[in-house]
């Protein structure tokens, strides 16, 4: 079973534990500027929104890479950067419609979320369940459950 990161921005408090966990897991240092997941604050609206790679099935970054440095991990569904092959051309950062592939000037390679090999540190660190790691084919489960709970007994659903 593949799993996906499921982000519920309504639960986020903007604490950046996910960014700290991501950078520590992947870079060995607490450094939000090197995190592959980012939390955005919309101050006037009072909203916090974590954002990261959704692991597109037909990934623009992977299609665009001229040196096949982005690989598909069949076990996790993640599109993973192969550091040994990446030449730092940044074409993938342009190709990605969501901005979730970024260049690291310290290494000359690009970085993106790889789901930590199937055990994402951000989800484990999140104190409010704003980031969870769930069945990739059932990401709507919690929402469906919420609406199902509101349904009156005996009422017929219209589809």
């Amino acid at each position, binding site marked *: 079973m593949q799993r996906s990161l499921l982000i519920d921005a309504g639960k986020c*408090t903007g604490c950046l534990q996910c960014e700290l966990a991501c950078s520590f897991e992947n870079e060995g240092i607490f450094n939000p500027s090197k995190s592959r997941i980012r939390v955005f604050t919309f101050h006037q609206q009072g909203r916090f929104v974590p954002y990261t790679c959704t692991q597109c099935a037909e990934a623009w970054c992977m299609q665009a890479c001229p040196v096949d440095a982005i690989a598909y991990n069949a076990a996790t569904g993640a599109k993973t950067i192969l550091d040994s092959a990446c030449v730092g051309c940044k074409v993938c950062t342009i190709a990605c419609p969501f901005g979730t592939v970024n260049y690291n000037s310290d290494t000359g390679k690009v970085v993106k979320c790889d789901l930590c090999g199937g055990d994402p540190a951000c989800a484990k660190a999140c*104190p409010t369940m704003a980031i969870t790691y769930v069945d990739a084919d059932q990401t709507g489960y919690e929402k469906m459950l919420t609406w199902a709970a509101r349904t009156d007994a005996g009422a017929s659903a219209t589809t």
Partner: protein
Amino acid sequence: MAWTGKILRVDLTAGTCSAEELNRNWAQEYLGQRGLATKYLVEEIDAQIDALGPDNKMIMATGALTGTMASTGGRYSVVTKSPLTGCVACSNSGGFIGAEIKNAGWDMIIFEGKAPRPVYLYLVNDKAELLSADEIWGTSVWHSDEWLHSKHQDPMLRIAAVGRAAEAGCLYAAIINDLHRAAGRSGVGTVMASKNLKAVAVRGTKGVGNIKDPARFMEAVNAGKKVLAENAVTGQGLPSYGTQVLMNVINEIGALPAHNMIDVQFAGAQNVSGEAMHEPRRSDGKPNLTTNAGCFGCTIACGRISTIDQGHFSVEHKPEYWGNSGGLEYEAAWALGPDTGVDDLDALTYANFLCNEDGFDPISFGSTLAAAMELFELGAITTDDTDGVELKFGSAEALVWATEAMVKGEGFGRELGLGSKRLCEKYGHPELSMTVKGQEFPAYDPRGIQGMGLAYATSNRGACHLRGYTVASEVLGIPEKTDPLATDGKAGLVKAFQDATAAVDSSGLCLFTTFAWSLEDIAPQVDGACEGDWSAERMAELGERIWNMERDFNLRAGITAADDTLPKRLLKDAAKTGPAKGRVNDLDQMLPEYYALRGWSKHGVPTDATRQRLGLT
């Protein structure tokens, strides 16, 4: 090791920025932030200097765990000599800039001298520059924040700034970081403005490493996060209601000071409580509270993000205040509300927004306004002084007018900026100033919570709840319940809380963790990250060392045991209602024992033996 090992020294007079090595021996004795910065301050300045003169220094210091994943590990402190009290000032703030300073590679920044023209520090990792602040001098913190982000085309800059209150000489001006977090008390912002330093803008991309034992550190961090999540206060009460969870609780036990501390209960408390912030408004159906918010790395997230009712008279024609910003926390809500007798939640939220926008301490401001209201009702202040405004207890219009006058720093606003002590002296009633060592009280009446009387009287920065929060024990039963109306055992309780707090304030962690954590939870996190062996006992001793170092500074500054007291109202006028009815604060029953437990003479001076034991020779 967790420390970066580097200090940035900014000579504002010469306009230079230079890097120097951290004194590692001092780091072992004082850990970081409050302790370590105070050590630098007391070594570098004469205690008797003018706090607003160029000889004063201002230190922005991170803690040992600031910038790490330890929950709440984003704190920094501003340490200087206070213009309000003449004591050592140490104001602690959350938000994000503390961690950013550490990420840029610095344990602390020492500002000295005075810039000839307004400047701001622009710090990007190793590169530090003083740039002209001419264009933002005379503008608010919020405007300066926007201008700096725009000028440097960098949305990720973290900014701390002073507003118009500091520039106008308000003696309790704050330094505001990240728009609505404050190094709030004792006038640290006034010192910053006196140096012609408008703002500090930081971007750090180096990260925080040097963790002594990463695996053990993360184990301690995760254990600590679990304790916070499972505790009723840090896991439920604070995220849901913020510190405002206390408003109704403290009112019920008869320790909510009201009307410049004439009363110990307030009929309108529930209207300005944490619960009220959740109630849908009649006008638009939205509650005052939009969401809770966390500072850097914080898994509690007690912060309030609020809106003001767009139809409220304070903002009716000011769409710039219709968005969200930092909402009411308990101390601010109390000072702006019960202490002034105002129970209008929107008026309080608006006043709180202005305190953040232009950088002044809502506790001291509200308390000073409450004193002014009492002076007005006595006839000592008249409408001639207030542009015709009736400065009456309970008037939301008066609160809004006074707050706007403070922002402008003109007329009566300038008088309010003097603080309660100087204002009451000026109008001939010094006895009406509810202050200790010149600093205004926070939101716990020591007639109803006896230990807090001793904590206020002996606090090294004047009246303050954050130097020894015995409310935790006396009201909430943390770590164990004591009787709030008893004085027995309170000397020991106050000392233990003061020492532990000084240690927490030096770690980079938030004091609010101690609703759930003891030093036994904190020490393993410090020990996992920092070189040296850090036990709970060592942390407590570190706190005691810091407390005595601060005391010594204050003694050298001319503060004496005679200043370890409370206003007569709290010692002579009994509480009129509630569980504490008939009680005054029995400070004299606690103070001698406190001095003895501290190892101080009966004149409140640390003995040579005490200094030697703590390594303060």
